[in-house]
C-alpha cells in the first residue's frame, strides 16, 4: 500500500449543517476540570485533579502504570461518577450526566483495550458513530421513507470521508475484527470522530504500533485537530509521540498531578524523572 507517499486527503464539505459546525475558535477552554477525585472504597484512585484544555489544543496525560490516567478518562466520560470535583465542558457542568449525555455534549473517546464492534463491517462501525447525526425515526426506517434514503446516503458519504483521513476507505466492507491491530486503533478514532466531538480522548493510540506507524499517527492527530478544529487529549507511553505533538502535558502519579507544563518543562522536571526512574540514592 502506498502508505508513505499518498496524497494529502482533502475533506470536502458535506451538504448538511449537522456535520462539523463551525467551531468557536476563541481562547476560552473547552474543558475545565477542578478538584476531580474518585474513591473506590478506601482507595483514592484520583485526587485533586485540575486541568484546562484549549479549544484546539493537543494535551497529553502521562504517568507510570497504575497512576490513574485511564481512570481520569473514565471520569470525564462518566463511565465512573466522580466522588468529588467538577467537570465543565464548554462552560456546561456535566454533573449527574451519563456516558451518553456526555457524548452528545461533545466528548468522544477511544479505548486502551480496543472496543470495536468486531463482527460488523468497518462501514457499520463508523455509521454507529454517526448514529446521532442521522435523524430519521423508526417508521421511516421500516417503511423506507425518503428521509431514510437521504439520511443514510449522507451518512455513508460522511463515513467514507472520515475513513479517508486514515486512507481506510477501501476497507469499508471488511469486517472490523479482521483488521490488523494498527488499523483497528485507527478505526476507533474514526468512529469517535463520527460522533462530532469537540474534545477527543485517545487512550494509548500508539500502543502496539511500530515507529513508522507512530510517526504517521502523529501527523494524523495533528491533521485531525487542524481539520476539525477540536481539542485532543491523549494518554500515551510513547514519549516521542507525546513530546512531539502535545502542547501541554500533565503528569500523573498515584492519582495526583505532580507536574504540568510544556514538553520542555516536563522533560527537565525532577519530580517527573523521579516518578519514572526513581530517586537517586544519596551519596554516602
Amino acid at each position, binding site marked *: 500500500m502506498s502508505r508513505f507517499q499518498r496524497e494529502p486527503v482533502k475533506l470536502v464539505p458535506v451538504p448538511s449543517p449537522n456535520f462539523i459546525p463551525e467551531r468557536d475558535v476563541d481562547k476560552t477552554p473547552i474543558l475545565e476540570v477542578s478538584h476531580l477525585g474518585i474513591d473506590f472504597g478506601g482507595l483514592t484512585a484520583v485526587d485533586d485533579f485540575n486541568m484546562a484544555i484549549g479549544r484546539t489544543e493537543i494535551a497529553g496525560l502521562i504517568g507510570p502504570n497504575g497512576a490513574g490516567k485511564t481512570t481520569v478518562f473514565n471520569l470525564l466520560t462518566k463511565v465512573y461518577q466522580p466522588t468529588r470535583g467538577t467537570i465543565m465542558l464548554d462552560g456546561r457542568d456535566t454533573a449527574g450526566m451519563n456516558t451518553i449525555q456526555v*457524548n452528545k455534549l461533545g466528548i468522544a473517546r477511544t479505548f486502551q483495550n480496543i472496543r470495536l464492534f468486531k463482527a460488523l463491517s468497518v462501514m457499520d462501525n463508523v455509521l*454507529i458513530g454517526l448514529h446521532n447525526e442521522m435523524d430519521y425515526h423508526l417508521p421511516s426506517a421500516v417503511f423506507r421513507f425518503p428521509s431514510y434514503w437521504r439520511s443514510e446516503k449522507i451518512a455513508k458519504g460522511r463515513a467514507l470521508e472520515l475513513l479517508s483521513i486514515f486512507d481506510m476507505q477501501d476497507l469499508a466492507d471488511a469486517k472490523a475484527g479482521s483488521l490488523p491491530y494498527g488499523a483497528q486503533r485507527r478505526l476507533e478514532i474514526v468512529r469517535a470522530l463520527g460522533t462530532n466531538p469537540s474534545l477527543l480522548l485517545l487512550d494509548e493510540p500508539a500502543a502496539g504500533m511500530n515507529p513508522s506507524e507512530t510517526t504517521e499517527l502523529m501527523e494524523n492527530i495533528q491533521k485531525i485537530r487542524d481539520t476539525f478544529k477540536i481539542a485532543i487529549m491523549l494518554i500515551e507511553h510513547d514519549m516521542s509521540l507525546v513530546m512531539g505533538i502535545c502542547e501541554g502535558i500533565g503528569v500523573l502519579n498515584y492519582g495526583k498531578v505532580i507536574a504540568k507544563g510544556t514538553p520542555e518543562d516536563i522533560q527537565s522536571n525532577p519530580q517527573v524523572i523521579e516518578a519514572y526512574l526513581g530517586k537517586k540514592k544519596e551519596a554516602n
Partner: protein
Amino acid sequence: MIKKSTIIPMPLRYLINIVLFAAFLFVMNTLITGGTISKYYSGVISSIGISIILAVSLNMATGYLGQLPLGHAGFMAVGAYTSALIMKAAAGSLITFPLALLAGGLVAALFGILIGIPALKLKGDYLAILTLGFGQIIMVVLLNIDDVLGFKLTRGAAGLQKIPKTTTFLITFICVGITCFVIHTIMKSRHGRAILSIRENEIAAESCGINTTYYKTLGFVVSAFFAGVAGGLYAGNIGILNPSAFGFMKSIEILVMVVLGGMGSMFGSVLSGGVLTALPELLRDFDKYRMVVYSLVLVVVMIFKPTGLMGTYDFSLNGLLDKLILRLKGGKGDGGGKAVLVEKEGKANE
C-alpha cells in the same frame, strides 16, 4: 475506491423480492384451495409459518440484541389469548382476524415493555432466569384463573375452546413476509445498527452516544410483538388454547430453532423454523424413532457447526443476481469477481 456493486437499482431490488414472494403465495394458495395439498398438510404448512415467525422474532432478541430470553412462549400465550378472545367475541367479520392478530401483537408488546425494562438491566444468565420466570407466571396464571372480575374469559385449565379456525395459509405467510420485512428493514437502519452495537460491545455503544436502554427495550418489544402475532395465528390454527402448551418447553423449542439456524441469521431462523416443525410431522410413520431423529439432528449440527446452520450468513436473492450479472459482464474467470463486495440486501423469504 471499490465501488459497491449494487448493480440492480434499489426500488427494483424490493420489487423482485415482493414479486417472487407473491408468486410463491399464489402458487401455494392455488394448490391448497384446489385440494392438491390435503387439509392436514396445509395445517402443517401453517404451523411451519407460525414457527418461522416465532424463530425470526426470537432471533431479534438473541441473535441481534445478544440477550437470552427464555420466556418467548409467554409472549406467544398473551397474544394467543388476546386474539382468541377477540375472535370469539366478534366472529364472522372479515377484518376481525387481522385486527385480532394486531391486538394480540400489541398486548404482547405491552408485556414486552413491562418485562423488558426490569429484565434488560440484567445480563446473561440472570436475564434468562427472569424471563423464564415470566413465561412460567403467564402459564400458571392462565392455568389457575378461570374468571376475571366475574367474566368467564380464559377458562383456566379447561382451556379456551371453539375459537373460530380462521388461520389460513395465505394469512400466515403474509404475516411471515411482514415479520421478515419489518425486522430486515429495522436491522438495516440506524436503529438496527444500534441494536447490533449493544450485542457487540455495550460500553463502546454508550461511548458512541447510543441510548442502550432504549434500543434494548426496542429490540425486546419488537420481538414480543411478533411472538404475540404468532400466538394469534396459533389460536386460529388449532382452535383450542390450553395454557400448558405455552410452557417452558415451548420457549426452549423456539430457542433451539434460532440456535440451530444460526444466531443473527434471519435466513437460518426461517430455514430451521421450517425444518424443525416439518421434521416431526414427516417422521410420523416412524413413530417410535421420530423424537430420536429430531434430537440427533440437533446433536449432529451442534457438533459439526456450532454456530448454527447458517452462522451469521444471510441469504440475499439480489446479492446472488448481482454476482451472476457481474460474472456474465466480466467474462470468464478474470477481474470482476475480485472487487465484488456484495451488499447483503434481500430478505430471506422462501
